């Protein structure tokens, strides 16, 4: 029951996030302006600036947790549709949750590395890859 309820709740949250994500991405089309230094800035740039903020990083991590829960519980449901593990559904649920936690730990490592060092763990510099 809890697995089902959380699956619904996470699903509804992700519907909301998907539309927010599409709208944020579309901001590249809006509100381009030139600031006092003669640089072009836009709505998009000010939004992106916020996404490098620690609060946004922590929220991102929460989002990854919600996505992972929904994805792994979804895998369990697909397995049950194929008749796999119907009798062992509790064990499979906990295996899925273990994978969720492991993946989340990986993302948490990257997030906290970024928060502390202000660069990602795979690159030593902040140079732009072009």
């Amino acid at each position, binding site marked *: 029951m809890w697995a089902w309820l959380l699956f619904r709740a996470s699903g509804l949250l992700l*519907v909301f996030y998907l*539309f927010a994500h599409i709208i944020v991405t*579309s901001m590249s089309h809006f509100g381009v302006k030139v600031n006092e230094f003669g640089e072009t800035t836009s709505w*998009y740039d000010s939004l992106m600036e916020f996404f490098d903020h620690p609060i946004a990083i922590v929220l991102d991590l929460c989002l990854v947790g919600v996505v992972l829960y929904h994805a792994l519980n979804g895998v369990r*449901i*697909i397995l049950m549709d194929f008749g796999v593990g119907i009798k062992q559904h509790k064990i499979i649920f906990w295996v899925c949750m273990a994978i969720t936690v492991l993946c989340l730990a990986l*993302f948490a490592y990257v997030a906290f590395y970024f928060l502390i060092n202000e660069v990602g763990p795979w690159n030593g510099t902040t140079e732009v890859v072009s």
Partner: protein
Amino acid sequence: MKAEVVAAHKGGMWAWLFQRITAVLLILCLALHLVLTHILNIGELNYGNVANRLAHASLTAVDIILLAAGIYHALNGLRMVLMDYWFGSRRWAVALSIVLWVVGLAAMGYGTWALWPWIS
């Protein structure tokens, strides 16, 4: 648990099948999407840097697949939830489907337009 399995078929066979297909697509493409956005270090997030990262056609292809699969999966999921509470009768269920298809197609158009500066 029994309720989960039974309820999953209520929305129709094709919706059920596409929900599974888009689920698998989403897991694969989302993994790629997340790994790429984390590993490809672009420095500060801004229009130019994001544009550089998205200049590769393969990345925008993944994004378009994500957009289509995501919208279908999201709205069909929403439909399944709504049908459990308010849109149980056949007539209301059909009306709901039509509204969600319109919303979905509009979102697909708007989302593609949102990605457009990086496609062309």
